[in-house]
């Protein structure tokens, strides 16, 4: 027991006041345990007989801890996280909205959380009905004809969609070679195109921040399989020329893919199926409120027009005899499976609960509030930050650090300073077409009071950038840990704990 002196008191108190927490391995101690199994009701296994080639005798370094220590470990660690439950989380393009507790409750009902994906269809009618209902709701929301829930996240939805396009074009005789992608698109779009075996051609944005029609006219030829369009785009702008865009793509035999990551701007207001989109994905973890979980899980359903339905992944849920549902796998035109089992089923449960809780009117109100909040922030910050595009925007707004950069203060610095004011930063330096971008998406989940606090903080930082730029450049100052050296971490990566060398 160390002697407590005035000098070492802060260090000793750090565990409790600051929740400083060593790694699991550093607090582990031989012989401690947090587990107890029920007694075996069958004979013990004879290891030598059953596994004659031998077993491992140890898992060197694996933790040994008691239950209470684990509770404290994960509780203390959790307090180092910022989360939606604490306040505005305005990460643009991520739609960090409220995650209702009801969704968590229904997802944990035994019959939904414990069912096995290979159960006979006769004893999983509830799960199949749930998926069918969600598919139908998403089809109505998007104005599309058929939906697969299988993709595990947005990026996998993109891959599914592009593979569907490829299969369709191949069936027409030529899969083509290229995908057009606007320069404002998310990085997953080009990465997806590459996996599907396509070359990527970048499409320029014009002075409005929208697809440059003249570029599209020039680039859209018979070698282009599809245009991957995010609408509203990553600047939060609705592609106003969508009619002409769809026409151009279709006239030259291509298909229109829509990245639906930004559907929170459109639900109940506009449907991609009504403006020429052939295939799209949704992010249930964005628009439909399934929790982001520190990086996942999500779900990326894909919706298609009826002519593409034959290409959807297997299995499909179809009507069986006697009113039941069954799984259909014999679909020769299908692109195949993109993920084992049904996909992230637990997210389907939550998304359906969200849709039911809001209902038709609530979903529209949600969209309206999301767009209202973003426009409110835009208007209130326009005097403090440069707005690169004057085009009206929907659910998010993108500023640049042009004014602050004159003092050497960049978007990354402003983001760090925002933490000192108690907020999670916006998305930094994306989209790439805006140098020094600040991409702000408040979602509908914020009250005016919370927006006003955020606006006040952003204005204060803009003033600080004028009067005390070094203060902003060195931020954060009030977080429990200061700016971490990410460059050094990447040069000499330490990616796991190792026991200290003896001696």
């Amino acid at each position, binding site marked *: 027991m160390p002697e407590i002196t005035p000098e070492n008191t802060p260090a000793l108190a750090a565990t409790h006041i600051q929740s400083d927490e060593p790694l699991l391995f550093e607090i582990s101690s031989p012989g401690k345990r947090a587990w107890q199994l029920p007694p075996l009701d069958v004979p013990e296994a004879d*290891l030598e007989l059953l596994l004659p080639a031998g077993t491992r005798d140890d898992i060197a370094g694996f933790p040994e801890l008691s239950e209470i220590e684990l509770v404290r470990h994960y509780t203390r660690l959790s307090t180092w996280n910022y989360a939606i439950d604490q306040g505005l989380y305005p990460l643009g393009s991520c739609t960090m909205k409220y995650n209702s507790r009801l969704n968590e409750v*229904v997802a944990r009902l035994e019959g939904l959380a414990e069912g096995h994906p290979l159960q006979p269809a006769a004893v999983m009618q509830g799960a199949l009905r749930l998926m069918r209902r969600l598919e139908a709701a998403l089809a109505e929301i998007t104005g599309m004809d058929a939906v697969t829930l299988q993709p595990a996240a947005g990026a996998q939805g993109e891959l599914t969609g592009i593979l569907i396009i490829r299969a369709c074009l191949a069936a027409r005789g030529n899969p083509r070679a290229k995908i057009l992608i606007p320069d404002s698109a998310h990085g997953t779009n080009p990465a997806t195109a590459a996996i599907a075996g396509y070359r990527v051609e970048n499409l320029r944005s014009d002075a409005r921040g929208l697809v440059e029609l003249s570029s599209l006219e020039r680039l859209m030829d018979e070698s282009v399989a599809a245009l991957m369009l995010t609408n509203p785009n990553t600047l939060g702008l609705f592609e106003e020329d969508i009619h002409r865009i769809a026409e151009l793509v279709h006239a030259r035999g291509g298909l229109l893919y829509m990245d639906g990551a930004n559907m929170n701007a459109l639900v109940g207001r506009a449907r991609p199926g009504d403006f020429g989109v052939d295939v799209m994905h949704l992010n249930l973890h964005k628009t439909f409120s399934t929790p982001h979980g520190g990086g996942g899980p999500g779900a990326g359903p894909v919706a298609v027009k009826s002519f593409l339905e034959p290409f959807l992944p297997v299995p499909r849920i179809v009507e069986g005899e006697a009113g039941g549902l069954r799984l259909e796998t014999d679909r020769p035109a299908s692109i195949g499976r993109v993920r084992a089992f049904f996909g992230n089923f637990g997210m389907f449960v939550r998304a359906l609960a969200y849709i039911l809780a809001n*209902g038709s009117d609530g979903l529209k109100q*949600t969209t309206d509030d999301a767009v209202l909040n973003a426009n409110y922030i835009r208007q209130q910050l326009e005097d403090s930050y440069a707005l690169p595009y004057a085009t*009206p925007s929907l659910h998010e707004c993108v500023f640049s650090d042009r004014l602050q950069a004159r003092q050497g203060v960049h978007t990354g610095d402003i983001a760090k300073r925002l933490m000192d004011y108690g907020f999670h*930063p916006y998305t930094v330096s994306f989209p790439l077409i805006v140098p020094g971008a600040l991409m702000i998406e408040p979602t509908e989940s914020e009250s005016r009071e919370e927006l006003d606090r955020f606006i006040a903080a952003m204005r204060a930082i803009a003033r600080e950038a004028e009067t005390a730029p070094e203060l902003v450049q060195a931020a954060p100052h009030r977080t429990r840990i200061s700016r971490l050296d990410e460059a050094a971490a990447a040069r000499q990566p330490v990616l796991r704990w190792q026991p200290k060398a003896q001696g």
Partner: protein
Amino acid sequence: MRYLPKSDVIRREMLSTLGLENVDQLFAHIPEYCRLRRPLNLPAGRSEPEILEDFRALAEDNAAGYASFLGAGAYHHFRPVLIEALISRGEWFTAYTPYQPEISQGTLQSIFEFQTMICQLTGMEVANASMYDGSTAMAEAALMARRLTGKSALLAARSTHPQYREVLATYLQHQPGGLREFGYGESGAVDAEQLERELRAGDVAAVLLQSPNFFGTVEDWEAAARLAHAHGALLVAVIAEPVSLGLLPPPAAADIVALEAQGFGIPVGFGGPYAGVLATRQKYVRSLPGRLVGEARDRQGRRGYVLTLATREQHIRREKATSNICTNQALCALMASIFMAVYGREGLRELAKQNLAKADYAARAFAAAGVELLFPAPRFHELVARPRRPLAEIEAELLAARIVPGLPLGPWYGELEGAALICVTETATRDAIDKLAAAYAAGARRPARQAKEVSLHT
């Protein structure tokens, strides 16, 4: 509209701040023909009790509370209650990707611990967090092996999970090189001769092998690695049941491990969300897809953690990235971490032993009842049985007794028509196993007592 924090009064005030009269004006720049001019054809918003009732009815129609002998990549284990208690904190589940390390150290440190435990378990040097699931982890491992070797063909064991192979085929369908398969022998394990024959062409980037394989059979990692390496191919070790690592030798001879972490305390939940993981050697780290957390120092020299080596990822490299993955399965990886920490160094071995014991008891019960067991090689907790009567009959009987039987193998393996894959984890009671064996045995001829031991363990 209980999720929306605004009154109509405030909405009106905000609109007037913007100089607007009504909210429609915010959408006025959307071309007229794009706008939806009717309400969505969905029911009106419902209350909590109504929604609970609706989902309870759906949940009840799913064999809730039945004993289950299904495995095949989705395994029932006791889930320590600590998992739900801890991950239900909003600080964990309502955060996103830890892009801002100063206010995300909880997630970052927990991922660093996860990476470490996966390395300790698998004998690899680095692990990511995470891939979508085991199937996509295997597909990503295949793409990674192609990048590393510059070769393009892939060679998968037919005894790897059929759905994993289907996903692999989907991912590879527009990549040059193609996908070939090699079979299993009488014992249920790899047909080494066939594997070697396929390797001889010299075009193979990686051999993809699962252990315990889809039939529950334990494979020999070292022998497979020797064969693959002798022909310039990598070995991708596929592990669909992480609990097996409590007892089985780690795949340390492999080059890439593609693991499904579901067995570590992630609900079976109709197939997801789960968590895939890729682990590999340090020298291959720059080809590894997915998030990686590394140690870093802050300005005062304090230890912290950050997302690192992002130059592999789509947001930096776009079409040249190692993968398109962005959102992953972080919360499921956290569940797996808590599970590993609860069972720990000793407990995981004990848990694995219970699984082995239960499956062995089931195997003996089947053999004693005269049910043919295929594949005598060592197994973990799954076994393949071929009863004398149609599986559909057995299924109907067992479902009536609130038992979900094994999985019919015929749809995936024509040669195994009439056989079923049966998974027996620590959650199976002796009583349920006895009932299961009795149902499969009906119509079978009981063998002489002696013959049983031989058929089981040779």
